[in-house]
């Protein structure tokens, strides 16, 4: 297919132009682009805060910024990265773009709700940016009372409103996905022929829908307490700060599974495609997603082992936290087994996938340190915890996001990214990441508390190593931004299926037409049928196959 025919053929990008065609679109693919741009924007804002934090921690004394500013920096880093990048990134960008195509539908069940979800996300983002510009908030992204509700005199209410509003964008996305996956699968697309990417997003949507409302009401109560001096968490009136922690972590722990489950969905697709083999134990990987989503709701108390929670509750939460690790282990073993006797190629997405498995294994195992309650007493609220969750969020979730972006870039843009520099960028990110966060495990066990602006001199060398790694990581993250934008104009033209991947999204042109398929395909084969040449779905006889 030479460049001329590609330009003339109509697809979702050239069907209409102008700002109105983007701001009022209900096409799930264009909404995915709206999210891609805004999510990338917030990623680099959060990254800026992270850079300042790492620069400050180069020296034991607080000489770059004052304590007040440092507290605002780590708070805004947490809020921006979690609520405005990690939670929406894979579901709202890749999920929005791909789920309708993967199940053979023309769009999500409620396209207008999908656009509303992006607007709500942007309004919430605006509130948080105004709060940051007006002076920021210094309560930590956890907003623990009574500091957040009584003692802090920063822009808590403005930020809380921003996160409260953004929560509804997650709820709408989750609702859209659940209804779409239930009611709009193409004929023949049974539940066990669904790609694991769709299973992972179904499990994530369960958390979106059942968890997000709880943080909405919790932050609302904190806001009410600050504005109208209600006395819900006020210890002066007999209020219990632990009640806030229970309500907060009831959502915020499942939220970390919102961040990782979509990434696991992406990795299942990448490992299958680049080892050209069926996923080992498809049902086990699918049900482990659901297992993580459900068990994820039972374990939040491990954030409160030392907080004055009763010992017996601590024991129950420790036991349940051990159980939630099992489905993740099952996934890792199944991915590794998929490589066996495969035909493994090392394109950039596969490098991200292999990196994901290694880093996610370390992240998951260090989670067991925090779940076994005897050790958690020592490492709670230290840099050990920081290293653990960055191995999961940055080492796994961001790697999976970048792997997914690279893998589906040809489908989204019709262009190929430059392979060589992409592989170099993946290696730089892998090295930079490990140098940044592995020293923090050691710092954690040494006892360096988190959120410290000033630290004892003996911790300096490890902190300098971590900051050095952070600079490499920053370089690693800027590279994809550059060459992916470059590829929009100069990238090689990608055909319908550059990776020879299975899955319905690869059986329609790149970039796909607005309705994804000229006619609804009929699914005839299992997912990941790499052992045959036949596509997973066929078009009803007599209809012209879209050239």
């Amino acid at each position: 297919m030479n460049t001329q025919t590609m330009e003339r053929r109509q697809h979702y990008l050239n069907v209409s132009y102008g700002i109105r065609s983007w701001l009022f679109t209900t096409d799930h693919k264009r909404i995915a682009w709206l999210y891609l741009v805004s999510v990338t924007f917030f990623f680099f804002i959060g990254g800026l805060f992270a850079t300042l934090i790492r620069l400050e921690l180069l020296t034991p004394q607080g000489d770059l910024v004052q304590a007040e500013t440092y507290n605002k920096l780590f708070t805004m880093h947490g809020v921006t990265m979690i609520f405005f990048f990690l939670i929406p990134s894979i579901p709202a960008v890749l999920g929005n773009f791909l789920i309708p195509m993967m199940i053979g539908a023309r769009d999500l069940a409620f396209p207008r709700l999908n656009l509303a979800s992006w607007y709500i996300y942007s309004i919430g983002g605006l509130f948080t940016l105004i709060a940051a510009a007006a002076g920021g908030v210094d309560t930590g992204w956890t907003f623990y009372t009574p500091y957040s509700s009584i003692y802090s005199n920063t822009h808590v209410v403005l930020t809380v409103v921003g996160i409260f509003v953004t929560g509804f964008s997650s709820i709408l996305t989750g609702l859209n996905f659940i209804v779409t996956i239930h009611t709009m699968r193409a004929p023949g697309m049974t539940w066990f022929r669904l790609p694991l990417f769709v299973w992972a997003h179904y499990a994530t949507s369960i958390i979106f829908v059942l968890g997000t409302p709880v943080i909405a009401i919790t932050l609302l109560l904190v806001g009410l307490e600050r504005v109208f001096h209600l006395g819900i968490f006020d210890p002066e009136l007999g209020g219990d700060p632990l009640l806030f922690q229970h309500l907060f972590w009831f959502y915020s722990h499942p939220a970390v599974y919102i961040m990782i489950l979509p990434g696991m969905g992406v990795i299942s697709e990448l490992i299958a495609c680049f080892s050209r083999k069926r996923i080992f134990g498809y049902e086990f990987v699918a049900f482990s997603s659901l297992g993580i989503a459900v068990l994820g709701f039972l374990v939040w108390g491990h954030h409160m082992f030392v907080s004055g929670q009763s010992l017996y509750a601590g024991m129950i939460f420790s036991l349940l936290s051990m159980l939630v690790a099992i489905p993740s282990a099952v996934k890792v073993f199944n991915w590794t087994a998929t490589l066996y006797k495969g035909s493994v190629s090392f394109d950039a997405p596969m490098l991200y996938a292999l990196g994901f498995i290694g880093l996610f294994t370390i992240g998951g195992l260090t989670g067991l340190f925090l779940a076994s309650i005897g050790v958690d007493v020592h490492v709670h609220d230290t840099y050990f915890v920081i290293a653990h969750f960055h191995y999961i969020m940055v080492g796994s979730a961001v790697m999976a996001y970048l792997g997914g972006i690279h893998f589906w870039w040809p489908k989204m843009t019709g262009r190929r990214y430059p392979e060589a520099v992409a592989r170099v960028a993946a290696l730089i990110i892998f090295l930079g990441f490990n140098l940044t966060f592995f020293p923090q495990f050691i710092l954690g066990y040494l006892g360096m508390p988190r959120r410290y602006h000033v630290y004892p001199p003996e911790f300096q060398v490890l902190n300098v190593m971590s900051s050095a790694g952070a600079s490499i990581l920053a370089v690693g993250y800027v590279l994809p931004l550059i060459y992916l934008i470059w590829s929009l104009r100069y990238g090689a033209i990608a055909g319908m299926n550059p990776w020879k991947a299975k899955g319905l999204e690869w059986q329609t042109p790149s970039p796909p037409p607005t309705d994804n398929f000229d006619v609804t395909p009929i699914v005839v084969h299992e997912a990941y049928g790499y052992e045959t040449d036949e596509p997973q779905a066929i078009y009803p006889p007599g209809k012209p196959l879209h050239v």
Partner: protein
Amino acid sequence: MLGFPLFPDQASSVAARVDALFYFLVSVSVFFATLICILIIVFAVRYRRRSENEQPPAIVGNLGLEILWTVVPLGLTMVMFVWGAKLFFVIYHPPINSLEITVVAKQWMWKVQHPEGRLEIDELHIPTGRPVKLTMTSQDVIHSFFVPAFRVKRDVLPGRYTTVWFEATKAGEYQLFCSQYCGTQHSGMVGRIVVMEPARYQTWLSGETAVISMASAGEKLFQRLACNTCHLESGAGRGPPLVGLFGKKVQLQNGQTVTADENYIRESILEPQAKITAGYAPIMPTFKGLVSEDGIMQIVAYIKSLTHEGTQAKK
């Protein structure tokens, strides 16, 4: 030799046990992490794509393997759970005869008081070989008393007592951190735990003269606030008798029974209506605002000292 520490020193009775569990966890993690990495590298290299139209066999799965890598991790995690839980019980159950020290955390400083009355700011002198129990509360936000060398930490909550205990085994000075974010100077709220041989500790303790013990300070406060008008030693007064109360089970008006620990006494001083002893009218006024956190701790120490032998001896 490195010029900077890679591992915290062990200075408490529980430190070695925490480190043992930590080493077990590290070894399990290193084993599985290297196992996965080796498998990935071996499979990736051995089965790398040699020609474009390779079509590997379809291996759908293997139930035996699935059961294996579900049951084995489950077994290992259960070992971790039981070991961790047992250790947790030891860490959070102070022995009976421990030295009772009270800690009041305030935005960005630690106020420590010994039973003999000695007051310290951001410092805590303790003898080796003796369990020390800290009863802690906060005057404003949540703090957390964390001594890495002892491997112990407990949040300090406003409106309630929380306890932590440790038994120092090695003399020396150890870092004290506040590990729960508590505002601007959170990273400045640090201190020193000075562990001394018992002999040197006694000389240090008696070094400061003219200081009254917490119990007697509590007794003075008990009289000044006129508690003794209702809480008579004979028990015939309008308030329940307090002699020998501490640690006993108390029958409440609504049928519940609670143990009279520090939290119960503190709550009964500040929120008397919350738990009313059976057979007594709910007439006790609240003393909130009339007595400071330190004052309450002194009254609690006084009530603890009111054992039957104690009162006989005093008579």
